Structure formats: structure tokens, C-alpha cells
């Protein structure tokens, strides 16, 4: 029988896997009204990229992480400039409705492209930093704690970036009112590209962690995407802070379901939770700070 403390620790460690992907999906939604369906696939790409950096090139984990982040950022910017920007120019009010379909197309290309390029094999590594930490009688790998630490660190840095830097403020301004921001001299197109690039960066790092703890494979993005969306809907669409909390909440619920039910049912639990939330509090557990903005 698992003790409550262990339960908390396990779900905390699990939640750190979801937090980057979910928070960045929430950011896409909240700031630039992109309902992304290829977000999980960015995580998949991050997983593959870091696998090749770590295994084929034998790079140091920190260096691999930084390189993955940089490449994923550029990739995100490229996708935004080449595909989302031309769509935005012509879509007007239906922008969000269209992004869902466009990103579904992108996700199909990425998934099947990965399948063709890398094969269907599950790729993974043993550990970033070998070793275990003995905690309450159970040995937990050092990686899990490192990943929790790095994830929380990235979230904090990111939060400060959004809150206190000039560009961060500009990003939030675009999220609140695009037109007003543009009148005050914010380059809206630049913010769109930057936000999309940053979200790809965060998803890529999330994918790296996923690859380390589990494996990466072409359809990994499907699961990652589903979980991220469950978190984002539970938190309230576009609420970044709520998404961070809800990542841990989801992993807590899942850990409970894993412990007390047979595998395969945790997804059923998640959807029941989502259904109840939609029924009683449709704006999500944490409400949507930017409510109405993404409905433009």
C-alpha cells in the first residue's frame, strides 16, 4: 500500500512532465489564440532531437538541453512565419477555428514524417545522471528529481520573463488587447512569432524529459497533446498559471487512478473530471483571466 506522502511525491514528479507542455499550450491559447493540435508533436520532436544529441553525439545533458531548446525555438518560429502567418492574414474572426485545423494538418505531417524518418521504434536512454535518491524507503532515480527541479526552474524563469521584462510585458499586452498593443508600438507580428517559438521551446524540453523518463516514438505527441489539452481545459482555456497547478492536479488524479484501479482507466477518470468541470464551472477551475479575448 502506498502512503499519502509517497503518493504526493510520485504525483509531483509525474506532474513535472506535464507542466512545460501544458503551460506552453495555455500560453498559445491565452496570448495568440492558437488552438494547437501539434503541440504534443513538438514535444515528440524535442524528444528525438535530444536523443540524437545525447546518444549519437554524446553531448553533456545540459548542453543537449540548451541545444534542443534553441533548435525547437527556431523551428517554432519557422512554422509560425511560414504557415500560421499567411493563415492569419486572411482568417479574421475565424482565426482560432482555423488554427485548430491547420495545426492538425501540421501534426499529421510531423507524426508520419517522424514515422518515415525514424521508424516506429521506441527510443530512450537509461539516465541523464545515474544514481538514486533514497526517499522514505523507496529508491527514486536522481533524474526524476533533477527533472522536477529543472522544470520548476524553467517555469519560474519564464514567469519572471513574462512579468518583468519589456518583451514579456509586450507579450502579455498582445494577449490582453492586440490592437491597443499595436497602437502603443508593440510589433504584433514579432510577438506572435516569438510566442509560438517559445511555446515550441518549452514543449521541446518537455519532450526531452519525457524521452528520458519513458521513451520517444512517432505517436508520442498524440498522448502528450491529449494530456496537455485535458490540463488546459480543466484549468480554464488560456490560463497559464492555472495550467501549471492543474498539471500537478492531473498527475495526482492519475496516480490515484493507477494505484486503485487497473491501468487504462486513468483516462476515463480524467474525462469524468473534465465533464464535471464543464457542467458546473465551464470557465475551468481557475477561471480564464483572458476570457473573451480568445473568442474574438
Amino acid at each position, binding site marked *: 500500500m502506498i502512503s499519502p506522502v509517497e503518493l504526493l511525491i510520485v504525483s509531483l514528479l509525474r506532474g513535472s512532465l506535464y507542466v512545460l507542455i501544458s503551460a506552453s499550450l495555455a500560453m498559445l491559447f491565452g496570448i495568440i489564440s492558437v488552438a494547437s493540435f501539434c503541440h504534443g508533436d513538438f514535444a515528440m520532436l524535442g524528444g528525438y532531437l535530444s536523443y540524437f544529441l545525447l546518444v549519437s553525439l554524446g553531448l553533456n545533458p545540459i548542453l543537449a538541453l540548451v541545444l534542443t531548446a534553441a533548435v525547437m525555438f527556431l523551428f517554432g518560429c519557422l512554422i509560425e512565419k511560414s504557415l500560421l502567418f499567411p493563415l492569419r492574414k486572411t482568417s479574421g474572426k475565424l482565426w482560432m477555428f482555423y488554427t485548430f485545423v491547420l495545426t492538425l494538418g501540421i501534426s499529421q505531417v510531423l507524426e508520419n514524417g517522424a514515422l518515415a524518418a525514424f521508424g516506429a521504434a521506441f527510443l530512450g536512454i537509461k539516465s541523464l545522471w545515474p544514481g538514486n535518491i533514497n526517499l522514505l524507503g523507496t529508491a527514486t532515480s536522481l533524474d526524476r528529481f533533477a527533472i522536477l527541479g529543472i522544470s520548476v526552474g524553467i517555469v519560474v524563469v519564464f514567469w519572471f520573463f513574462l512579468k518583468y521584462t519589456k518583451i514579456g510585458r509586450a507579450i502579455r499586452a498582445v494577449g490582453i488587447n492586440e490592437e491597443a498593443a499595436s497602437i502603443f508600438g508593440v510589433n504584433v507580428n514579432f510577438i506572435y512569432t516569438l510566442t509560438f517559438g517559445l511555446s515550441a521551446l518549452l514543449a521541446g524540453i518537455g519532450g526531452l524529459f519525457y524521452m528520458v523518463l519513458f521513451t520517444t516514438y512517432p505517436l508520442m505527441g498524440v498522448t502528450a497533446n491529449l494530456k496537455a*489539452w485535458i490540463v488546459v481545459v480543466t484549468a480554464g482555456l488560456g490560463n497559464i498559471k492555472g495550467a501549471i497547478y492543474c498539471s500537478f492536479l492531473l498527475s495526482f488524479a492519475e496516480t490515484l487512478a493507477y494505484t486503485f484501479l487497473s491501468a487504462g482507466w486513468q483516462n476515463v477518470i480524467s474525462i469524468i473530471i473534465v465533464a464535471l468541470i464543464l457542467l458546473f464551472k465551464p470557465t475551468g477551475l481557475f477561471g480564464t483571466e483572458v476570457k473573451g479575448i480568445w473568442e474574438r
Partner: protein
Amino acid sequence: MGEINLPKLKTFKILPYLLFVVALVPPLFKNEYLNSVLISIFLWAAIGASFDLTAGFIRVTNFGYAGFFAIGAYTSGLLALYFNISPWIGVFPAVAFAAALGALVGLLTLRLHGIYAAVFSWFLAETIKYILAAASDITRGYQGLMNPPLFPGISRFPYYYFILGILAFEIIILTKIARGKMGFAFRVIGEDETAAKSIGVNVLYYKVSAFTISTAFAGLLGVFYAHYIGVITPDVSSLVITVPALAICYVGGVGSIWGSIPSSFVIITIFEAFREIGAYRFIIYGVLLIVVMIWARTGLVGLIRKAAEKMKVTEKEK
């Protein structure tokens, strides 16, 4: 948004002739392979058209389309297996179940912005998939559920006419709806929900209606699919069904209903031509979706209309 117009009546005058020509194909060519390809084309055209009722009218991209499709398929299949109920009778509870679930999901999510319905039905479809896989004692999970055929014998002949009939019936019904008062309400809601509310349209009622009709057709086509293919797995409730449905609908041109017919024709033919790439064929859907969304949002219907207008102009010049 003047980009989507109702199909002109003229287009429908040629339809009976087209139907007649298509109905002559099996006896003329007597080619089982050709029949099977045409059956897929009709089936996917019907799927795309029913998808269009939500995507093109009330602007809800039903990402959980496969869930309702699977409900239809499995209801009929399980009734046949455990209660020995013929699919000709099983189709009624199957369609009723899919429609009821659609109405329920609609009532729950369509009060909110369309994205909630899209995402929630996607969650639901995934959950149905997990349940079907987890309850393998009953559904046989990924070993597959065997379904009795609709018609005796191995010939695809009867299926050909049956699905052609379903497609014609569906297109007629959906076009009637689209042209009527209901279709007008759907369109107004899709264009501007707030405006629709302010002129006294009962938004929730119409949105739920569109969603329910679409899911009822999804259930019906699921039943056909289950008994035509013979073996189904929980994957019928996954994106494997939803992505082609969505792609065929969008490539055809959203909001047109009949656009799915040329689109299904083109896409299935491409797939037959590139059989070898099998596993990666979804890449074609991806590329098509990207191209259509960015450069040709009116889809094939838009291209056909443009071509027709050009022809008219040149005729006048003469």
C-alpha cells in the same frame, strides 16, 4: 464572410444523371476491385458530408467524430454477437445511441465556445477507445470484433448500391436542411453567434440540433462500416477515422455538403495510386489540410465554382 454560398440549384439538376451513370458501373465493368474503391469513395463522401454539418455550418470542428462512428459500429456489432440481432434491426438502436450521446455532448458543451465541443468530444472518443480496449472480455479489444455481413454471399455488388443509396439519401436530407430555415439558422450562428442571439435565434437549440444530426449520421455510417469491413478494433474511435473525415470535408470545401463527393473521389484515388506508402499515407492528409487552410479555403467546391464562372464569362464574350 461571403466565401460560402449555397450550392446553386443548377448543380443538382445534373445529380440524377450522375447517379444513374454511377449506378451502371458495377454491371458494366464487373470488376470487384473497382467496386471496392468506389464503395470507399461513397462511404468517405458520406462521412465527410455529415462532418460538414458541424464544421461548415455551426463552426464546430467535431474532433470526436470517430467516437460516434465507433458507438454506431460497436452497438450494432455487439448486439449481433450477443443477442443475435440482425444489423438491419441493430442499426436503429445504434443510430439512436450515437444521436443521444451527440445530443448529450452538445447540451453539455455547446453552451460554450465551439472549441469546447471540439475538444470535449475528442476526449470522449479517446475514452471510448480506452473503454473498448480495456473491456476486451466483451468487445474482444484489439483482437477485433467480428460482425456478420449485411448481405449474403461475398460479392460487393449489394454493398455498392446500398452505400450509394445512403450517400444520395444523406446528401438530399442534409441539403434540404441546409437550404431550409434550420440551415439558415446554423449559418447565422456560424457567422456570428452574438448577432444570431440578438435577432432571437435559439442558439443552443440549433447548435445541438446540428450536432445531433451529424452524430446520428456518424452512427449510421459506423454501422455500415462495421458490417462491410467485417472486423473492427477500438481504433475506429481514434483519429484514424476523424482525420480523414475532417480532411475530406475541408478539402471538399466546408459549408457545401456536396463538396465531400469530389474530395473523397480525389483523395481515395490518390491513395489507391500510392498504395505502397501505406503507413505514411496520413502525411497526404496533413499536406492537403495545410494547403487548403492557407491557400484554398473554399476547397474543391471553390475551384469548381471559379472554373464554372470563368466558363460563363467566356461564353458571354462569344
